[in-house]
């Protein structure tokens, strides 16, 4: 048995052990034992994935009694990359959950579901045939649903989120199943090698493409299938949200890549355009909703939609450019999309874990009631800050490198050797650049708001004022996450070269590592060396810092008890800007898209209507897509359900007569 096969087997074994220990262990030991075993599962997955990413072959063959091919789990390089990403997030989450879980989050059911979820996620990228793919996919969905429902008894919103999640993930599964069915019918086999034989221009391929886009797009939180995200990710326990957003969503991306790069490469031009449109719309809509949200976890959930939108934008651009033989730019766009997925796993799981730490310390996830946490929770603040920089694509973090590469590929993709490649590309590329630019700008605002309101200034509520730093294991997990964000950003060269190996036939022509971990795109002629940038910043910072140190000795600072506040002597904490007021200008600017509902009630003093006693302002931004697209459909179903209630009213006589009629019809049909 090869190393990969042994790794996969070990994972399954550890998974079974973790399930058993969750069932048998005493409640006091359950979290510790479960956390350690889940960490081991993730570490095994990490090593196995790394092995596959570096080019090792082999796998695990599972014979089954059904009359079809045995299940084969054998990740290729791309699968290995995603195993690595998923299990990397798994390590962070498992370490964190060891000390974060309490109450219903640490129940027996939740700890049974955790290893199932982790193993399921790691098996999907290892699958080499559609049956094992779908099987692993369902294990993953099942595990995550149970984990989400951990706290359903105490909060009604969790139950509602559970229903949305189940419905949307079953819809995704249906589309993916149908997609594989179409391909399998056309090719006569279920293994991926069989499916690859299909001509990408054929009708079967086109139908399957649409089905897959709907299915994987739903899992990857793309608009308009993202409606579960703002309900589910905030309601799930934070370590589960981190695993869902950091890892599970990447499986949706993997599905997209599997279809567009491995199974049906070189599809028609409209595939690329469709993916770019969906990706661009998701990126803009996601970040717009995130920027106006005051709930920290809703903000992070919508920002996930944004990031996945950018990943798909990159994928679509690479497909479009490949169609015009702009291979260097196409490869760079694809590598950028993958890097974005990898870096998103790092920074978003850290952000969700950071949000979990805030909830752990204060019980609040409403930014309007936080503030001043930086001084009270320094480690959480540092980790959240670094991850926010990554999410806002600021240099020396992972997010910046990926976005830089994507933009480089887009602005060089429109031309090939000085000639315009096509009219479509020369409109699509500038539009894509504009979408990315606006997205990046709004992401900046979003994360300045999230970090600045939560961690800076003065506490806006009593729980925030009494917050204490979280336990050491949670701190360790946060620190590891923040370090991975920095490492991916400082050493993009070797990482991008590894990633290029997974998707490009000629990786060294697309991406190379130069200098001290810098990255170069030889086909485009662009270079980025973050470490040199850090050295340069340090050099220019030296005189400034020296002068500050000298000046601080001569003129020490003075602390006063109140901020100046423009001369106001009563600047109370509740007079600070909140997250809602921070986003207010943006709500006004994008009024037409966001459709906020505003309610202003002015109570006058009884004696005079010129004097105001109090003003009450309520603003609510709802998801336009949910209210405009999903509500009508749901209402239709509800009306149908009410009608059907008369048909099935619980009377046993009526049901017997239905069976009788059904039997009659069957007999008549058979006899014809």
């Amino acid at each position, binding site marked *: 048995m090869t190393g990969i096969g042994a790794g996969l087997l070990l994972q399954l074994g550890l998974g079974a052990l973790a399930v058993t220990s969750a069932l048998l262990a005493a409640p006091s030991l359950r979290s510790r034992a479960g956390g350690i075993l889940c960490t081991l599962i993730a570490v095994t997955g990490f090593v196995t994935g790394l092995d596959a990413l570096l080019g090792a072959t082999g796998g695990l063959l599972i014979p089954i009694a059904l009359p079809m091919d045995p299940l084969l789990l054998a990740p290729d390089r791309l699968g290995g990359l995603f195993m690595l990403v998923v299990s990397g997030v798994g390590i962070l989450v498992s370490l964190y959950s060891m000390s974060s879980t309490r109450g219903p989050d640490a129940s027996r059911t939740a700890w049974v579901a955790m290893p199932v979820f982790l193993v399921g996620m790691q098996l999907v990228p290892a699958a080499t045939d559609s049956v094992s793919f779908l099987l692993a996919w369902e294990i993953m969905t099942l595990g995550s649903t149970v984990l989400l429902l951990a706290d359903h008894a105490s909060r009604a919103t969790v139950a509602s989120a559970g229903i949305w999640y189940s419905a949307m993930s079953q819809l995704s599964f249906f589309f993916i199943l149908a997609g594989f069915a179409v391909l399998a019918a056309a090719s006569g086999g279920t293994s991926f090698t069989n499916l690859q034989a299909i001509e990408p221009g054929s009708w079967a391929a086109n139908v399957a493409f649409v089905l897959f886009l709907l299915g994987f797009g739903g899992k990857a939180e793309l608009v308009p299938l993202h409606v579960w995200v703002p309900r589910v990710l905030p309601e799930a326990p934070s370590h589960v949200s981190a695993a869902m957003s950091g890892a599970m969503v990447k499986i949706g991306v993997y599905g997209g890549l599997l279809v567009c790069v491995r199974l049906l490469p070189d599809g028609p031009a409209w595939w690329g355009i469709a993916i770019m449109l969906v990706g661009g719309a998701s990126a803009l809509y996601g970040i717009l909703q995130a920027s106006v949200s005051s709930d920290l976890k809703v903000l992070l959930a919508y920002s996930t939609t944004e990031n996945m939108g950018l990943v798909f934008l990159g994928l679509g651009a690479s497909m479009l450019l490949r169609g015009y033989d702009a291979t260097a730019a196409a490869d760079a766009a694809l590598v950028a999309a993958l890097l974005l997925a990898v870096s998103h796993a790092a920074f978003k799981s850290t952000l969700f874990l950071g949000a979990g730490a805030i909830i752990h310390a204060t019980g609040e996830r409403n930014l309007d009631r936080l*503030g*001043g946490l*930086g*001084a009270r929770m320094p480690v959480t603040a540092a980790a959240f800050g670094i991850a926010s920089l990554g999410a*806002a*694509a*600021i*240099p020396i973090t992972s997010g910046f490198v990926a*976005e*830089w590469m994507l*933009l*480089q590929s887009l*602005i*060089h993709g429109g*031309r090939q050797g000085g000639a*315009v490649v096509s009219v479509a590309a*020369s*409109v699509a590329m500038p539009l894509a650049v*504009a979408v990315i*630019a606006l997205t990046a*700008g709004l992401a*900046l*605002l979003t994360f*300045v708001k999230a*970090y*600045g309101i939560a961690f*800076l*200034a*003065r506490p806006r509520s009593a729980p925030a004022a009494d917050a204490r730093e979280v336990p050491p294991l949670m701190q360790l997990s946060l620190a590891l996450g923040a370090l991975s964000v920095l490492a991916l950003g400082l050493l993009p060269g070797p990482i991008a070269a590894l990633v290029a190996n997974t998707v490009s036939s000629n990786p060294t022509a697309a991406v190379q590592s*130069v*200098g001290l971990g810098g990255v170069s795109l030889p086909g485009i002629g*662009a*270079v*980025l060396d973050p470490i*040199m*940038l850090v050295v*340069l*910043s340090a050099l*220019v*910072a030296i005189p*400034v810092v020296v002068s500050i140190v000298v000046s601080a000795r001569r*003129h*020490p*600072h*003075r*602390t*006063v008890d*109140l*901020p*100046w*506040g*423009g001369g106001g002597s009563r*600047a109370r904490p509740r007079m*600070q*800007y909140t997250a809602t*007021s*921070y986003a*207010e*200008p*943006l709500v006004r600017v994008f009024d037409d898209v966001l459709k906020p509902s505003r309610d202003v009630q002015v109570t006058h003093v009884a004696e005079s209507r010129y004097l105001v006693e109090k003003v009450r302002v309520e603003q609510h931004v709802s998801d336009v897509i949910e209210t405009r697209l999903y509500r009508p459909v749901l209402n239709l179903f509800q009306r149908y359900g009410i009608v059907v209630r008369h048909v099935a009213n619980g009377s046993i006589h009526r049901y017997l007569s239905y069976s009788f009629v059904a039997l009659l019809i069957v007999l008549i049909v058979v006899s014809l």
Partner: protein
Amino acid sequence: MNAVVSAIIIAFVQVLLFVFLAPLLMGVIRQVRATIEGRAGAGIWQPWRDVRKLLAKNPVRAEGSSWMLKAGPVALMVSSLLLCVLLPLVGTIPFPSIPSDLFVIVSVMLIGVVALALVGLDGGTAFGGMGSSRHMTVAALVEPTLLLSVYALSIPAGTSTISAIVETRLFSPEVIISPVSVLALVALSIAIMAETARLPVDNPGTHLELTMLHEAMTLEASGRDLAWLEVGSWLKLAALLGLVSNLVVPWGVVTDFSALGLAIGVVSIAVKVLVLGVLLSVGEIFLAKVRLFQVPELLAGSFALAFLAVTASYLVA
């Protein structure tokens, strides 16, 4: 001479020159405005005196303000200094592994934007938050214009490296007056005005709460904190004006290193930046600040120009 050594010398000269020039530029802008408005004005060296005064004061910080109030001004200053190092101002000889790449430069500038916004929030007052919120909204809406206009300028050069763009314009000046370039430059100028908080987006001379953007964020800073915030913002303005002037009038910039060339480069960029500063100041006399919620319309207009420039350069050229 070795390209790396000459790149280092040019970067060093650029930093020194602009640290000297930026307060002077502010002094010139304010003095020109005062003269035209019929006031005596404080003289062109007043910003230098202000900085000296601020550095010699004990900073006052409120209880509850964090390290951000100390580190933010430094971060803004470093980001502006990096702009002076990376942009082709005196010369176009880039560092080998850190070329003056468009996206790198924009994101280096964004570090300063973020630092300033966080300093604004850290004070824990309504003013700071208000300024920070408006500042970030404008910054977010400016970014598409900024990237697309330089994208349009980059197409004739075939690269997003700004020094290569300036060199292309130097060696084939017909590019400068092409319609694409003019459209892109107009868009870029509007974006830079918004980014550096000048009229008509922000009124740098006011302290009225309804109109404040930039000033509101610096209200809680004092002493050296305020000094770095001010110098950092001035440096950013000077460096971006230097970039625009080199895109419009690239002559005088050093492409092959020599002592005489360096001297010409230094003098020419100083003259160009100061002349542009005078033009800016005269232009601002005739402008009123637009309402905050009309700024997006202005920016949407500039975005349309930039987008037109990019697509035109693909379809026409």
